[in-house]
């Protein structure tokens, strides 16, 4: 079972996930950023579900393990779609929505195929391994896509403060998660030390998104030149 600290971080992250949806609704941005809110609402429900399964079956049970990994993959896919909607917002003036959606589906399919090809040799618990591999690869794809989106924001001289902060928060989150996954792969002995990293990182994204919804209106603008270090 998780320690008291583990439960406290978990509870905090769950509250923060809910707070993003509440802030978005309060600021009338729920529909505009539907997939971001869908991801946060799903994260909240998954947290509650995990707690119930944990209490019912215990942390070492196969039920909890399956629920954890499958729900994690589902959340990663939701987060991927949230990122794609940020692309659509950034490119909305170029009327490129159809192409962005098509590219997103192709990339998701390609990542799933790549993950399958990596795990197909191991027959032992292949499905669970596949979902773990897919999550990890989607995090890295998400990081690369966020990096490209950031480049597009600078190039297009995007000024919408809220949109910029949503993208940058996602970039910080993806890069921290990808680094943690890589560390766990490289140093399996650090698993215990890194056990708290995922839930702590899980707090950062809802915290920064709630801040972006609460602090900045959709009309708030900033000077693009203030964002890029190279532009100074």
């Amino acid at each position: 079972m998780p320690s008291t600290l583990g439960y406290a971080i978990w509870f905090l992250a769950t509250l923060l996930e809910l707070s993003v949806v509440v802030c978005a609704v309060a600021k009338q941005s729920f529909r505009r950023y539907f997939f971001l809110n869908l991801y946060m609402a799903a994260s909240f429900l998954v947290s509650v579900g995990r707690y119930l399964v944990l209490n019912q079956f215990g942390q070492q049970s196969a039920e909890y393990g399956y629920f954890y990994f499958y729900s994690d993959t589902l959340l990663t896919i939701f987060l991927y779609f949230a990122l794609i909607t940020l692309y659509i917002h950034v490119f909305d003036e170029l009327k490129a929505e159809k192409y962005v959606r098509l590219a997103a589906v192709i990339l998701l399919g390609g990542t799933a195929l790549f993950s399958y090809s990596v795990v197909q040799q191991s027959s032992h618990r292949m499905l669970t391994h596949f979902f773990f591999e897919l999550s990890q690869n989607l995090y890295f794809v998400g990081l690369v896509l966020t990096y490209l989106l950031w480049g597009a924001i600078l190039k297009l001289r995007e000024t919408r403060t809220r949109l910029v902060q949503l993208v940058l928060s996602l970039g910080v989150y993806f890069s921290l998660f990808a680094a943690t996954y890589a560390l766990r792969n490289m140093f399996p002995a650090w698993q215990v030390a890194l056990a708290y990293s995922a839930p702590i990182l899980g707090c950062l994204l809802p915290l920064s998104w709630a801040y972006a919804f609460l602090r900045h209106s959709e009309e708030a603008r900033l000077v693009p030149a203030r964002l890029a270090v190279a532009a100074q």
Partner: protein
Amino acid sequence: MMAAFILVFSLAALLQFFVSYCRSLIASSARLPLSPEVQDVTGISSTASGEDYLRVMQLLLLCPERIEDRGGIRAVGAYYRLLSFLRRTFVKMVPSLSLWTERERAHCAYFAAVALDRRIAFSRNMLAQQLDS
């Protein structure tokens, strides 16, 4: 090998995203004017210096905390420490960094002064509401 590549790429990206995120937080308050009270208390009128940051933070900590700006203040605080670290170490090797880090630290100080302004206004509102009730 793949994991090492992902680690290096993600750490480099993390640094860039973190710096840009902090700069977006700072940029969003860069054009806000300070109230005359905060200008008097901090000694900052339109431009701040990097050295002002710690003093303004001490004043900021005296005010009741607002949950909604806590995350932003912490992120900018981490950015300020990163800049100060750069100043202490790499500036000797790359002197051109000195001007940039000092300008960024000054922006951090101005951000803290705007946050102080908000907290003072918030405290005043709270006090007024208590007196009314």
